[in-house]
């Protein structure tokens, strides 16, 4: 029997290891991380389930093309340091990605084992390897290419900016990052809550950047200070724009400006970045409400609804479509439900109700129904006439997406934008309408995921390097996987 067949037989019989989690009733009242991580033994055991496919579908499905069977193989052998190094070669932020990637749509979603049973717990293994080397100080300092003499500016210190900065620094360029807020990390700091992504992990990644000589300018908002043109003139040879999608959408329903209606950005920023959960030690006021309604069905909506519980409120989630259409990671939906978020599906907000002091007292909603699938197979929704009802609440959080902040294109007219307000780029090279200026992440794709932003930043970095070497950008990359 070949080794591979043996493995297949073994793997098919092995159950997938579930990540141990904090008890849902307990965690709903604290801000500590929910999944507790694999032990070394569990991780090695889970790693043996991988079939080491010769043409791994998981790697192809990964936005940054992590060589998944390779790193899992290292874990199976107990060489976690090697596994982490393999991850680091493709991903700047594996400890983050292991936690926040929608694995069920990417690597795990295409795992062969998933066809008959459950896929390998790739996300949990990635997280384990990154955590293990960080906690045990086993990380190798990344190797940096000799100084190129080129200067690169990175706008925005979120997932895309961090990835681009890391890639550029490793390639030997002098890198300066410009961040508008007073803290680096972007959405990893202000948006994704502590219980999903401990902030110490983000800080660790920022320290790595600094150790590579990357200079981070905080409180420095490009567009209000220098414009992109001025940055180019001031001696930067290339620029990467990773300014994200920070402009929140509101629902566009009557009463939305009443006191007690928040964007998810505001709600989460208060609790995460500004640490309102430690009020009054920290000065930023938390949102104190008896019952908070979150509107939306994405990851941000789940984060908001779960933060609402931890803020001591009853948490209701209103989503206009059905569970199957929720864009959130399956794990987040599962966590939210286990913790006691009250899901009101096929329900759309109609009107915010307020008292005489303009304070929110309720959200009028209407029931929705799914329509028949259209030609593309997608099911729409329509209102059920006369089904209006009121969800009583004293705060409403709109988590229905973000658009890119128009600040940068507004102050740099030669940067072209699309109708959606995103930057216009060459889809292959990610170069914008200005030569030498590249972009990636949500500023290009609208509100998407951390990993897709990183994938784009990596790709942009590849072409920026070509650009900086003076090579033509359109030639097919030789070593692109």
């Amino acid at each position, binding site marked *: 029997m070949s080794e591979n067949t043996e493995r297949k037989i073994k793997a098919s019989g092995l159950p997938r290891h579930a990540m141990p989690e904090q008890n849902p009733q307990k965690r709903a009242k604290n801000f500590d991380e929910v999944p507790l991580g694999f032990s070394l033994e569990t991780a090695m055991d889970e790693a043996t389930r991988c079939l080491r496919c010769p043409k791994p579908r998981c790697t192809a499905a990964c936005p940054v093309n992590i060589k998944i069977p390779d790193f899992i193989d290292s874990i199976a052998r107990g060489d976690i340091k090697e596994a982490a190094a393999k991850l680091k070669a493709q991903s700047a932020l594996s400890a983050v990605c292991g936690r926040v990637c929608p694995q069920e749509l990417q690597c795990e979603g295409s795992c062969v084992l998933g066809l008959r049973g459950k896929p390998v717990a790739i996300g949990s293994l990635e997280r384990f390897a990154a955590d293990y080397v960080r906690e045990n100080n086993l990380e190798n300092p990344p190797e940096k290419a000799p100084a190129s003499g080129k200067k690169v500016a990175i706008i925005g210190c979120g997932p895309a900016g961090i990835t681009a900065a890391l890639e550029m620094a490793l390639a030997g360029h002098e890198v300066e990052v410009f961040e*508008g807020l*007073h803290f680096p990390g972007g959405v990893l700091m202000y948006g994704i809550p502590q219980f999903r992504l401990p902030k110490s992990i983000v800080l660790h990644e920022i320290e790595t950047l600094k150790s590579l000589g990357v200079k981070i300018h905080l*409180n420095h908002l490009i567009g*209000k200070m220098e414009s992109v043109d001025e940055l180019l003139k001031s001696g930067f040879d290339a620029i990467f724009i990773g300014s994200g999608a920070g402009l929140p959408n509101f629902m566009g329903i009557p009463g939305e400006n009443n006191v007690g209606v928040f964007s998810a950005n505001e709600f989460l920023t208060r609790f995460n970045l500004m640490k309102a959960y430690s009020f009054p030690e920290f*000065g*930023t006021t938390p949102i104190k409400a008896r019952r908070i309604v979150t509107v939306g069905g994405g990851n941000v909506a789940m984060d908001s609804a779960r933060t609402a519980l931890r803020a001591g409120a009853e948490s209701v989630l209103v989503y206009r479509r059905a569970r199957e259409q929720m864009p959130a990671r399956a794990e987040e939906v599962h966590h939210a439900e286990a913790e006691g978020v009250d899901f009101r599906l096929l329900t759309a907000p109609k009107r915010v109700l307020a008292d005489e002091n*303009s304070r929110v007292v309720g959200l009028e909603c209407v029931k929705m129904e799914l329509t028949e699938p259209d030609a593309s197979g997608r099911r729409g929704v329509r209102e059920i006439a006369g089904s209006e009802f009121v969800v009583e609440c004293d705060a409403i959080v709109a988590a229905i997406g973000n658009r890119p902040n128009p600040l940068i294109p507004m102050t740099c007219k030669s940067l072209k934008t699309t109708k959606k307000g995103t930057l216009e780029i060459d889809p292959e090279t990610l170069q914008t309408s200005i030569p030498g200026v590249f972009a990636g992440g949500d500023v290009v794709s609208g509100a998407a995921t951390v990993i897709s932003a990183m994938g784009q930043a990596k790709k942009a970095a590849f072409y920026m390097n070509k650009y900086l070497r003076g090579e033509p950008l359109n030639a097919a990359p030789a070593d692109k996987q």
Partner: protein
Amino acid sequence: MEKINLTIDGVKIEAEKGMTVLQAARSAGLYIPSLCAHKELSPYGACRLCVVEIDGVRGTPTSCTTPAADGMVVRTNTEQLNTQRRRTLELVMSGHTSACFSCDSREECEKIKPEPAKAGISTRCGTCSNRSDCTLRSVSLGKFEREMNLPHLYSLEKIERDDPFIDRDHNLCVLCGICFRTCEKVHDGHGAIAIVNRGKNAKIASAFEKSWNFEECMFCGACVDECPTGCLTDRYSKWYGKADSLVESVCQLCPQACKINLRVKNGRFIGAEKVSFDPADTLCAAGRFGLVQISNAAGRLAFPYVRNEDGEMIPAKFAEAAAKFAEIVKANNGALLIAIPETSCPASKDAAKAIASAFGGDLELVKFDATALSEGVRANIQNGKYSAAFVAGNYLTEEEAGKIAHFANLDFLRSKSQGRAEVVFAAALFGEDGAKIKKLEGQENLCSTLLKICEILGIAPEKSQHKTSEFASPKTSKSALPKAYMGHLVADLVEDMKAFGLPFTPKPEAEKKNGGFEVLENKLLAPNFHALKIKSPEMAKYAKAGQFAILMANEKSERSPFTICDWNAEEGWVQFVLEEVGRSSSELARLKAGDFLANASGPLGTPVDLSKFNAGDKVLLLGGCYGIAAIYPIARELKKLGAKVVSAIEASTENMLFFESELKGVSDEFITLTRDGTKGVKGGCSDVYAKRGAEFGACVAIGCVFMMMQCSRHASLTKLSLCSLNPIMVDGTGMCGACRVSVGGETKFACVDGPMFDMAGVDFVELSKRRTAYSMLEIDAMPRHLGSPCHK
């Protein structure tokens, strides 16, 4: 009681013999104004507002000191009396911060600002914490002419904040004497305070004007309760405003178990006060000022916990926790310890006794002030005598708790021993239980917890006689003040108690970071207004007129927006003018040259579009409050362009004006207005706009919401009319949407679309409501203890 009959203003009334004319009138429901008369205090005759005319009596005697006599004919409302009262009030007002009384827009302004703004020092009713409960205000409104004929003689003394719990703002004192008379009455003739000095320098003080904490004053707070103006205030609770109800309760901080009234507002405990003027009902500092701070302490337990099979502490419902402990009691018959504070209510003690005796347990009544159990019980714990225990309070070390197999704890705060507990009950304190004050679901007081356990166990506690133990009263000796409550040091929860020498747990001193932005200068321009100059070459390089920056005094501060008022790119500095209001602005106001701000992020916001202005354009700039400084850079830039600039600034009163010479230097015409007419023209900027707006092509108004709202009514007079909006912001870069405002029916983000908007379309009422979104929490955020950054 002998009755007498008299006539007041033509009305025949019956009164009791021995009443004063004022008492007789009031008992008949007739109104005579007065500031110094108090139903609990003997007549004083200080304010002279209660003057009356009496047939056969010469002059205008004060009704509060004149005994009513049978057959008297009294007039209270003649032309002469009213003139006399107005003159008297005017004299009072000339020494009081009275700008709001003289302001023609007061009524409308107070509709927009239903609660007074917090401030470092009260400069008018609009920034006086006592506005909702001020006798001077209620007496004056209506009787007072808005025109003042006397000069204003504000002493503008610094607020005295060097004593625990009490702020004293002598600017607001009207020398009615209620405070020291109350003090004498509630302390049986041994008052600690009196009026010292004479004339303009007269003020309320302790002997030799020493700190009130020097000797006699016991900080019973009676004077604060009765002060009819905002002179004596409770530093902790003054900004919460007037209570909407009083709840009777019993203080359990020490074995005295004093009756106490809890002040409640919107279902929250905001302060405490004595129940009567009877000396026996006097409170001690811990009860009057400490109780509310203990009840509102950070880190209160909000719900019970029960440990599950996996050893995790899981939040639980009260009934679940009680049932769990009842099981433990049954299973550990004979090896049980029940320990509750001796200050617990009699019913709690009865219930504890019943459980202990029914299940063969030891009952320990923990001594008042103790932070540990008695020696004997501790020895028993070490010997492993108890396999189960119920301890109400923070009396066990973690190690001791670990010696008890099944440990249940009841507390209002987290404690180390809870790490070893199987059940933790969240204690409701004082009047929080029942329906008296809105409580969190799951919080129950000690008594109801024990009674519930008794009920589950099927035992009925017997009612026994309880004696309060002999002990020195904290009302009469500061050394007898309670040092600990339920095993927690009182001074840890109520910082000002440290001033009485109470023990506390030392806190590690915060590391002073010198990173960030250096403060070059911080000067006081007018009461509450500070000009803060910081080093930031980058901000100075890019700043433009009309922009703002987000400042954070330290890493724990809120991000707060402030208008950039001046800058110099060559020298690399920017200047802000900030008004000391709540925590953020106070933290910034306390910074001195050489200190560092943690963060300064800017310039932010869209600047004034100077391309819309041409040389020779006539522009009217209107500034009020911080806006006085905010229009300065706009005036300067327009002047550079060659525009004709007319600047008008308003302040409530003369001493609140600033930046006059700066603005004169960049204006072709400069107009000063004060709301009380003490300098320049009486009125507000909107009056200038209304009268002269048609002369101008453009107008820019920056000030408080009310001032801009008033100005916006005349926006049609100029082609261009701009205002600068100041909503709550978090990031200031367009990310959070907290700053959304309605302009012309559309929602805009003030931080990126503004802050400058066409004033005609702004929904100012919505803006003012959105600005109050966090008003209660903003008060909670203020550190209000001695020496805190907000009150030095």
